[in-house]
């Protein structure tokens, strides 16, 4: 069958599936948070609030309908692009007003960090190819550095940086930088760099990615056609990267959800005002419109990246189209 047609069909199917996916994910999250004991009203009304006030508030928050009914309403509304208003976290602001900017930051942070991780992994994989005294040593060290839980490395890291800067400022008489001391949220981009650094180093992400990338590189290097390319004196590089592009990209894609999860902790420690922070706070306060809205954004991001990888794959590798079509 012709590549273009089948590719279009593929894309069509994928997009249809993605919509289903969104509905499914949003329902799952909606259901979970609505079935959590305690609701937005509890979150804001202290002891002794007269019950009638609580009831009126519940009605105002749309907590009076059941879970299914509530979801129905939510779905029909959000189909028109209206994801409702925040109840507790930022009363009166629409969910997207609050969520979109935060999510943008988080997406940049996590994809940036992940990208860095992948690049780093490639470099390391090229550097630490085969067993040898020195390289085994390095690999071992890497295992230890990257096996620290995210927040531990974050806490240790910030303590170290602060102490370091202080000492340095005393020694060199340099004026203190605007981002010091960390952790503090400031409009400066620097905290995001630190957060990114910790994301890359913490929670074994780097090691995991490194191993995956390394395995891919080795398998392609070992392939017969590479030997053939060598034998005819052509340069191996283009063939190598052409064949590595897809596996590496999918290594990126498959890890995005993990990183988007880990970002919650990092944002908490570095007090960044990203989606992770928002999600955590909002779910504590049972601000379900915000939580569900954000989750939709998360899902969307993962889906879109997934789509991209599929497109890339079917463009680069004709066999895929043949298989899926």
């Amino acid at each position: 069958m012709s590549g273009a047609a089948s590719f279009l069909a593929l894309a069509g199917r994928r997009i249809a599936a993605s919509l289903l996916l969104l509905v499914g994910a949003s329902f799952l999250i909606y259901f979970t948070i609505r079935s959590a004991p305690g609701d937005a009203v509890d979150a804001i009304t202290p002891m002794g609030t007269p019950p009638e006030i609580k009831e009126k508030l519940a009605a105002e928050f749309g907590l009076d309908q059941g879970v299914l009914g509530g979801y129905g309403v939510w779905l029909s509304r959000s189909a028109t692009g209206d994801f409702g208003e925040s109840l507790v976290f930022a009363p009166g602001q629409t969910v997207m007003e609050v969520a979109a900017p935060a999510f943008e930051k988080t997406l940049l942070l996590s994809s940036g960090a992940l990208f860095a991780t992948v690049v780093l992994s490639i470099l390391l994989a090229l550097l630490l190819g085969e067993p040898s005294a020195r390289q085994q040593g390095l690999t071992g060290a890497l295992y230890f550095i990257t096996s620290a839980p995210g927040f531990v490395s974050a806490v240790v890291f910030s303590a170290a940086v602060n102490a370091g800067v202080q000492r340095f400022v005393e020694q060199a008489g340099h004026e203190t930088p605007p981002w010091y001391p960390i952790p503090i949220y400031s409009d400066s981009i620097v905290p995001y760099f630190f957060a990114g650094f910790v994301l890359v180093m913490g929670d074994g992400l780097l090691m995991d990615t490194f191993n995956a990338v390394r395995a891919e590189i080795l398998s392609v290097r070992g392939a017969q056609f590479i030997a053939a390319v060598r034998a005819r004196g052509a340069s191996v590089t283009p063939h190598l990267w052409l064949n590595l592009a897809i596996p590496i990209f999918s290594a990126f894609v498959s890890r995005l959800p993990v990183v988007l999860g880990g970002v919650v902790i990092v944002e908490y420690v570095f007090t960044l005002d990203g989606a992770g922070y928002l999600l955590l706070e909002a779910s504590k306060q049972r601000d379900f419109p915000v939580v569900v809205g954000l989750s939709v954004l998360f899902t969307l991001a993962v889906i879109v990246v997934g789509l991209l990888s599929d497109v890339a794959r079917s463009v680069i590798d004709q066999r895929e189209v043949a298989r899926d079509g």
Partner: protein
Amino acid sequence: MSKRLLRVLSAFLLLTTLVSSAAAQQVFRYPEDTRPSSLLPFFAEDMSAVRMCELIFDSLVVQNKRGDFEGGLAKSWTVDADQGGIKFVLREGVKWHDGEAFTAEDVVFTIQAAQDPKTLFNSKSKFNFIREVSAQGQYGVYVAFDRPVPEAEKRFLFKILPKHGFPDTAISRKDKFAREPIGTGPYKVKKGGYSLRSIALEVNGDYWNTSKVSEVLMQHTPDKSAQINLLQYSGGKAGVQAVIFLPPKNIPLFENSDSVVLEPYHTVSWWYMAYNHENKALADKAVRQAMALAIDRQELLEAHLGRGDILSGPFTESSPFYNFQVEPTGLELERANQLLDGAGWARKGDTRGKGKLKLDFEFVMDKELASNQALFLGIQAQLKKVGITVRPNYVDHAKYRDQVFTRRKFDLTLNIWSFEEVEDVYPLFHSKGVMNFIGYNNPDVDTMLDTAKATKDYKKYKEQMKQLHAVLAQDLPYFFLWSLDIYSGISKKMKGVYIQPYYYFSSFPEWELSP
């Protein structure tokens, strides 16, 4: 540090200094554990919001450092002879942040809005005593009560809202005023200063009183260790000048610091361990007393909360109602055991029991109360010694309120009552009290509370409260724990610091930030 490292670091520093916008001078930064839910005073449910509103809004009456009440927006006031009403004379020439003039209309509006049934907020009941409010000319307000009210001025600490800020008296918590408040206070929200986790205020140029610090920046920083970090290096541009509450464990860090002072302040709030009286075993007074005797409050206090006063009743020692005749009980394990044996609670293995009942309780805790866990662990260990088992159930804030306050699914819980000024314990212990979540029902206490409520003479009222104190200390609806000396960590750059125990920032205008 090696030379090379130094060079690299300096390069990095220079770079980042260029990258990021230079921080403004004269900014007072402080971190908050929780994010202000709303800057609309009615809906300022959490303390972080209360503190913010204190900087943005004014009230008719304010409490000064010495604790007596003086004029805020009200220049003076006169209470009717029969204590049935009060007349305020307002300060003239006061301007709202948007330039409009402040008049009596605003005061009237505020009270009417608070009483509007469509305005839903928690402390609505605070306005119940007002029968009618009317403006008398531009700068006069008369407030009529539904019954005689002693020391009425004390009830006018609520913040005044601008009439022109709202379409009508029905105010919704979704009103954008909650993000773009208009007050008469010393500080106003900076342009674009309101963001997800930080709120920037700038000094209000035409404030009727002077205020020295030019900018205030609130930063939501849930991680205590981060707050400590920021105070430790408060020299840095991003450092903070104050941490509202320093956990005792971190205090040693600053005890002889050359950059930070420890500012103690005494809140009108006390800690308690609540018994659920609907639980058959806990309904037995002997059990409650035994527990009280088995728990070493002093030890817990010192280990986890630093300094404070051990209490014997539902008042702080600074309160006029505290009865010093009643001595707090100490640790008496034998007597505890005797009491339990006497009441027929026999040891079966680790846990005492009688018939089907066992002294095995669910201890529900609110995660938002940080020291909860540590305290529980101590209590659990101590109660085990007298054969009482307690199981932890550690839930987040929303779940806690639902489970404990609404559904009352708990045996024991640990919490704090905070009061703006003097304690009013009626709702806590009266069988019909709105805050009586422990199902406490004692006819004698009920009658005492009712009579006290009826008394007009403040002296008598005081006496009745003292008696109540004695009774409750015996009957133990709660196990009354302590009131704390709380410490703030304040940068030594701050001068003229005085902390108001409840509103915290009441005297902030006098604070000074030396460069």
